[in-house]
């Protein structure tokens, strides 16, 4: 008899997948649902920026001498900046780095941190000790400060800022997954796999890592918001996205010099950032309630 023969008989209710379970809970939580809608809208805005923005050329950086620092009006919903560019179009184009970079940063941090943490937690011994001491060193720096120093060493710009954030972010995931792996190691299904002689790499890849997904997902959701703030901060200082590209942090920095006369240049990008980060944080809170990561401590 092969394993495929043991399938649920027709007519029996299928066990809902994990994604469906999550969706069922989010659907009943108005704040989480609203957050998910907001994030989806932002994502669509980022993808279709050239079609959504009223002035796509200005969104990408073209200046317009005739419309400098105009207050919000029907022609320019959110006003124009010091170089005459439509703030609304700039915000729409700014949502592109705001999405791509955090996804990339958090994704890479997970890809580096999670396997290292899983191996460390599962195998223990000198490897665990080494990984933990290395993360100790990285976590000894305030993460944004380390990212600033790395960006300064590599040269300013969006790519280097993103790389710097990956370097200062992966240790958090290594720690998180190690904690989860430590408790999973004692579970029966892992012991069973071990007693059957399954290779260690297979156990880690098939049994440990998939079961660490929930705490990773909770942390990653919140971190997407945090990385947006960090990227904004680096751009605000002048280390991240360089002009004339559109970036919310950069826009706030550009608008700061004329904040008292033309408040809209800085305040609207700030609101765009706030709303997206808020959505990630609210969604993260709901996910945290679903899978309490504390069970892995």
């Amino acid at each position, binding site marked *: 008899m092969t394993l495929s023969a043991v399938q649920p008989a027709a007519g029996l209710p299928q066990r809902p997948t994990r994604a469906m379970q999550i969706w069922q809970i989010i659907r009943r939580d108005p704040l989480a649902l609203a957050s998910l809608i907001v994030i989806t809208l932002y994502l669509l805005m980022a993808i279709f920026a050239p079609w959504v923005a009223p002035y796509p050329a200005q969104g990408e950086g073209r200046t317009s001498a005739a419309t400098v620092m105009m207050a919000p009006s029907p022609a320019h919903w959110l006003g124009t900046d010091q170089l005459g560019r439509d703030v609304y179009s700039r915000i729409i184009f700014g949502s592109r780095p705001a999405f791509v970079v955090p996804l990339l940063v958090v994704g890479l941090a997970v890809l580096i941190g999670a396997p290292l943490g899983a191996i460390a937690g599962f195998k223990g011994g000198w490897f665990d000790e080494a990984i933990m001491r290395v993360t100790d060193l990285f976590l000894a720096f305030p993460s944004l400060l*380390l990212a600033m120093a790395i960006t300064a*060493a590599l040269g300013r710009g969006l790519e280097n800022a993103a790389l710097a954030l990956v370097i200062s972010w992966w240790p958090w995931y290594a720690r998180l997954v190690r904690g989860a792996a430590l408790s999973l190691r004692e579970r029966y299904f892992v012991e069973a796999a071990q007693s059957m002689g399954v290779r260690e790499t297979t156990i880690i890849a098939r049994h440990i890592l998939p079961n660490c997904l929930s705490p990773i997902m909770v942390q990653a959701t919140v971190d997407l918001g945090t990385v947006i703030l960090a990227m904004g901060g680096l751009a605000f200082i002048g280390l991240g996205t360089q002009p004339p590209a559109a970036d919310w942090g950069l826009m706030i920095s550009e608008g700061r010099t004329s904040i008292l006369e033309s408040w809209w240049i800085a305040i609207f990008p700030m609101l765009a950032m706030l709303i997206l*980060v808020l959505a990630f944080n609210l969604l993260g809170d709901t996910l945290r309630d679903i899978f309490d990561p504390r069970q892995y401590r």
Partner: protein
Amino acid sequence: MHRLEFILRRIGTSLFVLVGVTLITFALARVVPSNPAALYIGPRARPADIERVTRQLGLDRPLPEQYLTYMGDVLQGDWGASIATKRPVLQELGDRLPATLELLLAGMAIAILAGVPMGVISAQHQGRPADFAVRFIAILGVSIPAFGLGLLLQIFFFRTVDILPLSGRIGKELRFASPIAETTGLLLLDSLLAGNWTGFRDVLWHLILPAVTLAAYPLGLIARMTRGTMLEVLQQDYIRTAHAYGTRERVIVYLYALKNAIGPTLTVIGLTFAFALTGTFFVEIIFNWPGMGLFTVRSLLNLDYPAIMGITLFGAVSYVLINLVVDLLQAWLDPRITLR
């Protein structure tokens, strides 16, 4: 016995981490950049200068030897000289420390004094309007970029209602009318010690907006953490027993429950110091606050490399020390920790 062992072990790991931290700053200063000597001279480096600095910094030496010299210099307080000002980095930082410290302490004081009670009230009234209000403020606090909040506050309190100053640490007129004699560099304390009330009021007025801006993020984290741990503690049997004895609600919540809930909050407070430290960078730009943050940002933009590395090292060292203090404090509050 256990406690002494714990303290010694904790100090030992901190020392290990501090050595490791210098390894990372060393790598960032000497190994990562393709031409470190050029970075140390600044943007207008001539080949002759590069050769001179290469020899001066020992960049032609093997890396382990370079590291040992670097460590020796750092330990002796020689953190290099800023390219922009030509003065020793440590001196530059020291001059600016009081301004940043005043801002940091004021911000953290607001965050703790408001955040902890907010978390307690929220837990006490779980599911009711007060709880929702606190949770909303807390999540707003961790979602708003500090540089954006600062601008918003400036627009409202300076431009719209005009009751607080826009930026700076003290008013221009005050510097002549009633100057503050600096002893500690913390102007609030100095003016108080000198009995200079006009000065005290002016400094306080200047401090409010930057401190509130800085407090937003830590306040959110502290309120959330306090709420979470308080919810757990309030469900415990000994709290029910206290209720059964007829102990007053306020005594139960603020004395018996909070005492046991404060541990994890302390850890968060230690961690938020790191956020607050980088937070001061943004707050200082927005409010033109003459502290280390303004110096840091200027150094970052001018590629003042010795200064950047000095600041990074300083930030990491103070962060490690703060966490050490928090851990020791926690062991003192809760002796069980030392047994783990």
